[in-house]
């Protein structure tokens, strides 16, 4: 079972990240996935998060309790959620927007300049897909094929192609990162 | 004095047999009450319109006027207090072939049901609302309503009313009603004509009928009986043409401006829905399975029917004028 938290600030497509991943897993990777998110006025601006519980069998408890994977796209969300990441867990963070504390080896960190990559593709709005590419490559929780299949309906048709490119960009970057720093699987997974 | 009434004979012989649920007669209304006049006028209007009576539904709220739905021989619902309009809205939208008429009182429609009233008018929902306004809650014993004139005595304003009342034609007009008229229960023929017009109107139509509550409002304010009320209407009610609805408020025992204040053509809620959906979805939009050509055909047929009916009403009026049958010259 995996518990994954996506976090950032409102407008970064945090909820979309979990929706795409959840759909990919449950419809194309033959897994069970339950997605929850923070709602209401609190969810607009500030730290915003969405969560996924992924399992080989039906998910019972729908909320994440001690996530093994954290994606943090803003300083706020890093500050809020990093302490709740499981020891040995995987942290993927926005390299240009988050200044992490000194690496004490408690978790495995992977910086990724996802906003910069997205801007190179024409719009920072694609940052979430770059993020998902990294996430898929580094954690292997979800296959890239399933992720791409999940896109239609969840991103506007006219941006489908560029979103796929954004995903590929992130995926390639994720693989490079892994080569430099192989993932130690264990409790986190 | 006792009057012998053969109720079975009355039921069998009444000209109202087709329109009323005769098995439910006698009704509960007091002698001198104005509601019966409105029901008679309504039946007369339906009869004259020649419409398919199976396609008419009458919905009422609670109160004395709220009992109308139970006496008329149409599909009818006696709802909860103030909720006749949303029930009518649901029935109309679920079954757009129906002509839906709400008959209820001033307290029901504009007190507890005020929110529904203003929104149905705003949407130009294709229903007719007849409000029998007797300035009081009759069934519960003569309390203040939103239309009670200042200084009038009600059981909950025993020292005289100090609240500002609603002027219902102004309220309806301001909210977007596309047909607004007011009469008194003395003016039965005008009510009939107005109801016929409203039956033939597409959109939210509102008819206010000022009527006496002899048992409570009249008595509590020492205004005499039903006949005295009609005398008052005769003296103080007059037809006003081209009057601004802002000017038709009613003071205690003051002038009553009557007439058809508003009549305008504007797409109804359903028409607006159809147009918007059809614009966006084209032929994929088929409300209850009706295709665009079918909808257009239906709209055309209805428009023709309305035009025919209007012509008939115009002819009748001209004939009556010619024969000097006593319709108010300034009539509708």
């Amino acid at each position, binding site marked *: 079972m995996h518990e994954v938290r996506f976090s950032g600030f409102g407008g970064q497509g945090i909820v979309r990240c979990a*929706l795409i991943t*959840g*759909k990919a897993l*449950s*419809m194309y990777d033959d897994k*069970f*996935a*339950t*997605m*929850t*998110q*923070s*709602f*209401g006025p*609190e*969810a607009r601006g500030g730290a915003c998060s969405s969560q996924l519980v992924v399992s080989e069998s039906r*998910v*019972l*408890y*729908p*909320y994440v309790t001690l996530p093994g994977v954290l994606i943090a796209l803003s300083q706020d969300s890093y500050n809020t959620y990093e302490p709740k990441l499981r020891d040995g867990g995987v942290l993927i963070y926005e390299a240009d927007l988050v200044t992490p504390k000194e690496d004490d080896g408690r978790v495995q960190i992977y910086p990724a300049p996802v906003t910069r990559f997205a801007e190179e593709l024409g719009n920072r709005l694609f940052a979430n897909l770059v993020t998902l590419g990294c996430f898929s490559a580094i954690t292997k929780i979800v296959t890239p094929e399933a992720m791409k299949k999940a896109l239609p309906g969840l991103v506007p048709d006219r941006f489908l192609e560029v979103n796929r490119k954004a995903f590929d960009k992130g995926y390639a970057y994720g693989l490079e990162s892994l080569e430099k720093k192989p993932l130690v699987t264990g409790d986190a997974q | 004095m006792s009057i012998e009434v053969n109720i079975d004979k009355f039921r069998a012989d009444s000209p109202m047999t087709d329109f009323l*649920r005769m098995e*439910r007669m006698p009704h509960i209304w007091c002698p001198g009450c104005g509601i019966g006049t409105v029901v008679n006028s309504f039946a007369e209007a339906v009869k004259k319109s020649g419409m398919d009576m*199976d396609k008419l*539904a009458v919905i009422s709220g609670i109160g004395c006027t709220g009992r109308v*739905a*139970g006496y008329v*021989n*149409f*599909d*009818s*619902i*006696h*709802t*909860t207090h103030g*909720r006749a309009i*949303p*029930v*009518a*809205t*649901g*029935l*109309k*939208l*679920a*079954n757009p*072939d*129906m002509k839906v008429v709400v008959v209820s009182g001033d307290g029901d429609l504009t007190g507890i049901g005020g*929110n*529904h009233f203003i*929104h149905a008018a705003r949407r130009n929902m294709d229903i007719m609302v007849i409000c029998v306004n007797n300035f009081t809650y009759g069934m519960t014993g003569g309390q203040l309503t939103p239309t009670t004139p200042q200084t009038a005595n009600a059981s909950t304003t025993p020292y005289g009313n100090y609240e500002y009342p609603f002027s219902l034609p102004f309220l309806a007009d301001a909210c977007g009603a596309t047909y607004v008229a007011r009469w008194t229960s003395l003016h039965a023929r005008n009510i009939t004509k107005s109801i016929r017009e409203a039956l033939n109107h597409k959109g939210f139509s509102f008819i206010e009928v000022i009527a006496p509550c002899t048992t409570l409002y009249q008595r509590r304010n020492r205004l005499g009986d039903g006949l005295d009320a009609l005398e008052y209407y005769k003296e103080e009610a007059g037809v006003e043409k081209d009057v601004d609805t802002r000017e038709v408020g009613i003071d205690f025992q003051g002038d009553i401006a009557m007439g058809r204040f508003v009549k305008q053509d504007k797409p109804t809620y359903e028409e607006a829905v159809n147009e918007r959906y059809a614009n*966006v*979805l084209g032929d*994929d*939009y*088929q*409300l*209850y*399975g*009706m295709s665009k050509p079918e909808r257009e055909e239906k709209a055309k047929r209805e428009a023709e029917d309305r035009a025919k009916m209007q012509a008939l009403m115009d002819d009748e009026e001209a004939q009556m004028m010619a024969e000097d049958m006593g319709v108010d010259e300034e009539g509708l």
Partner: protein
Amino acid sequence: MRKTAADPKGVLEGSHFLDGDHAIAEGALAAGCRFFAGYPITPSTETAERFAERCPGVGGMFIQMEDEIASIAALVGGAWGGQKVMTVTSGPGLSLMMENLGLAVMTETPMVIADVQRAGPSTGLPTLPAQQDMMQIRWGSHGDYRIIALCPDSPQECFDLTVEAFNLSETYRVPVFIMTDETVGHMHEKVVIPPAEDIEVVERNYYEGPKADYRPYKFTGKDVAPMVKAGDGYRFHLTGLTHDERGYPHLTVEQNEKVVTHLIEKIDSNADKIIQLDESEMDGAEVVVVSYGITSRIVSRAVQLAREEGIKTGSMRLITIWPFAEKRIEELAGKVKAIVVPEINYGQMVREVERSAAGRCKVVSVPHCGGAVHDPEVILDAIKEASK
């Protein structure tokens, strides 16, 4: 009752990643609902939004009313206009609906009301889950009556049970509630919508016979009279007053007894047919956890932990909340040491369990305030304590 396959037009066949609120709208469309009147309220609004988006394409009508009072009132009109109807709401809106819930009950008008529960009282915690309206739907409208209520624990069940709710409401001419909550309402999971031919739909039972003989009611306490729809020439009359078989007011104590007994008995006498339970490992159980909705999923984990610790623990999930499974609880109470009832309220359905158990076993309430689900450990502790 005429059962047919669903109209393919309303069935979005296939696998989807949906939240519970959206799944309810799909369930309604699959069941043949073509009229929705509602008022926005967190956390239920997504159902209205989905219906508004989908209905023009399937030939349905959506209207956003001025409030929840009007919404449920419009359903009464809509149902007798000839459509299958629904609305959705949450606590504050549910309170407003109580008035015309009574009208629907009294006029025996079929409709489906989804209540996506949030924490109260009053405005409470609008964006967080609770199970605090369980008694309100049962008792909230004045007078004696019965309704049916179903409680989904997942988006998939939101779809399945909404179809079932429409079928029950047509069968018994009664308002049927879908009692879900913010968590299930907003949780996304895979929802499989079967092909239309595999979805069983109960069509409205319309009267066919001489017009003069039509009676909108029969007070048998077993079944209900067929309906008609406006415009078909039956000149029906409905009233919230105590009425006779014609629907005319009949204001006597005797008639009131006849009507109210019927309203109660038509549900109670069919309770065995209506009630659905999901039981696991009940044989030889010392402790049984009775739960419903989202809490059942938390319970699954607690029960797993308890079994690992060697406590013989059974689990009963109430899919049908009302009518309450009193016979089954009574039967269980004679066999087990204790029944544990966790719920996201300060003890509502546990009162029904206590009433049914009638002292034959321990009944342990595990209350939780609104706004969050239980910690499974808390339920585990209660199971352990109860097993002693």
